[in-house]
């Protein structure tokens, strides 16, 4: 077998290798470039009390979770019970960011399904979401004591993600 005639076969095998690996990947998922970068600053009114404002700087010194949600988002409503459970264990402060929503609708959702958040901020025009690279709700960020984003969950939080990724990370960050 002369060497050059084997080249097409070799190239093909390499190609199949990559395709096989690719089958396990999700081409639609957009990983965040903000991991290990400072959480973008913002200052927006709170959901329940528009006279009060919220800025991530207030949370410095604590490990906390920012959960981007909206009342019009079906997946958010499905995720919500998980968040309510999470908040009961008081592991970490949970701050909500109501994204491109109507105040009344969001308040109604929290009243109906329970409010897991310490409080929620209101991002009416979506500008904060854009700065955080939000492209679909729900999205959740774990932010450390220095205000650096350490983890982003795209889509609803599942039990598995919580136990395998988020809780261990939070424990580790709390020690630092």
């Amino acid at each position, binding site marked *: *077998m*002369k060497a050059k*005639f*084997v080249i*097409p*076969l070799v190239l*093909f*095998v390499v*190609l*199949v290798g*990559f*395709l*096989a*690996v*690719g*089958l*396990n*990947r999700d*081409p*639609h*998922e*957009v*990983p965040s470039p903000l991991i290990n970068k400072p959480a973008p600053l913002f200052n927006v009114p709170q959901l329940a009390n528009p006279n009060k404002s919220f800025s991530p700087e207030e949370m410095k010194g604590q490990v906390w979770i920012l959960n981007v949600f909206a009342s019009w988002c079906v997946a958010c409503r499905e995720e919500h019970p998980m968040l309510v459970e999470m908040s009961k264990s008081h592991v970490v402060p949970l701050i909500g960011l109501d994204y491109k929503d109507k105040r009344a609708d969001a308040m109604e959702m929290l009243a109906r399904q329970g409010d897991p958040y310490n409080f929620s901020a209101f991002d009416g025009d979506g500008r904060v979401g854009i700065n955080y690279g939000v492209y679909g709700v729900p999205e959740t960020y774990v932010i450390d004591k220095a205000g650096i984003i350490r983890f982003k969950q795209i889509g609803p939080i599942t039990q598995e993600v919580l136990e395998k990724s988020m809780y261990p990370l939070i424990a580790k960050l709390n020690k630092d």
Partner: protein
Amino acid sequence: MGYSMIPEIGHFALILALCVSIIQGVLPLVGAQQGRREWLVLARPATQISFVLLVISFGVLTWCFYSNDFSVLYVAEHSNAQLPTVYRIGAVWGGHEGSLLLWILLLTGWAFAVAQLSKALDEFMVARVLGVLGLVATGLLLFVLTTSNPFERLLPAAQDGRSLNPLLQDPGLVFHPPMLYMGYVGFSVAFAFAIASLLSGKLDAAWARWSRPWTTVAWIFLTLGIALGSYWAYYELGWGGWWFWDPVENASFMPWLIGTALLHSLAVTEKRGGFKNWTVLLAIIAFSMSLLGTFLVRSGVLTSVHAFATDPRRGIFILILLSLVVGSSLFLYALRAPKSTLGGTFSLMSRETLILLGNVFLVVASGSVLLGTLYPLLIDALNLGKISVGPPYFNAVFVPIMVPVLFLLAIGPWANWKSTNLKTLVQRLWVVAVIALVAAILIPQVMGEFTILTALGFLLAFWIIASGVLQIIKQFKAGKPTRSFIGMQLGHVGIAVFVIGVTMVGAYQEEKDVRMAPGDSVSVGGYQIQMVDVRPTQGPNYQATRGTFEVLRHGIAQDALYPEKRNYDSSTMPMTEAAINSGLTRDIYVSLGEPLDGGAWAVRVYYKPFVMWIWGGCLLMALGGLFAVLDKRYRLRLKK
């Protein structure tokens, strides 16, 4: 009163077809290897039976759609009772399972054609060719029966189906996939001939002679299929684009590029006995690209607007199928190709060299498209992040690689086989060069804007056209041209026409996004488009708002356009139906946007000069292929 048993007939036919395909695939190949005549002769009848069974199966599925049998899951997911009959038929191949059944139907159809039209062919060759096709069919039938059965029942049956994506309710839908698949799948014949000749150990020029007409016909269909898809996107999507370098578009374009290289290479192998190894490899690669495309569309590996609903199991199965078919072919190639004999000699400066050079560029072009399409996957698989490779990349890379091909196109036919004199070539071509240069400088000036890229486009297009015209004149002086010659001219001029269309639209199109109320007008490209009114209307399964626009030139009304915004009963997404006034030298394209305050509307108007030349060029190329196939020399040779 129970559920119809007809779908079960379709299912059963598929199971039978699988059994027959296994026989068709295994016995003739083993028989040819061991010289068992009684197994060889099974090839033709097995192929014929396979085809009939597939016709039955596909016919049954079509009947299920036509008769609104919602006890079949696939029908319920892709059709509903309000769908007009034509689109109910088109819906048969609107989803993964049905389109795959179409694939297999066409595969057995091509095999059937080969079985019927190969009476003069050596029976060992026939057995091997049909055997290979049988093996491929076996693989696909296994795939369908285990992971993608279109006859799966939905019990209890749905009251009504979910309906077809409104985008797909279009005449283009009815023709684009079948045409495309005829092309894709048709390359399996050249593939089967290549494998058969590798298996026989006799890599002579005969297989090229046999493969050529089949490859040409497949290429014609693929050309038409791609052109139709492009044209459909143009008038259906509402914003005038015609090519997006979407992964699935690329999946059909790569086999086309390889197929074009293969066509030319086959010509050399047939005439001069040269390039045997290269041509065999191209035949394998062309069909491999078809299979790869099938994988990419249905596995969920890439982001694409065309991608069918995905299921990891399916992805794995197709990948295994792809690996087996292509892997074993390339292994066989590595084993047997070195043994082939050298063909006729030719010097560095000859038609053979020019064709080979053109082949290199076409293969590189195809490789580049493959690289760009798969690169995001490559980077992701290596955990190096997520990137996108889109039109800016492909345009930047593809165009420079194709420029040499277009340049060579005009020169090749003037060069002699075996050896040609450079000086003679220059003598013949300098007139062509001058004409091309004049066109390159003048036309942009006439159209109003000169850029290097635009000039290059016209330079190449007229370089090809002028060369073709001179060849035709020379040929007519020598006597009546053969169909093969006419085919070549049409094919080459077709590309030039295509390039003119692309250059004109790319450089000189005008687009205006305006706010219009009845009575307002907007001007583009020397035309005035005036809004007359906007009123509600209704279709068989949609509500719409229809605008009436008048197209005027120098104050004289030319035509009326009726763009619509439709709300289909089955979908919440409003669809835009653009209205186009097509002409030989320009299209006027009006698209209705969102309603604004005060009874006004957002309207988008395009002036697209020579855009129809894009698809006109493709039609010419396909026509060229047709002339080439109809050349009597093919048929005479086949009879010998």
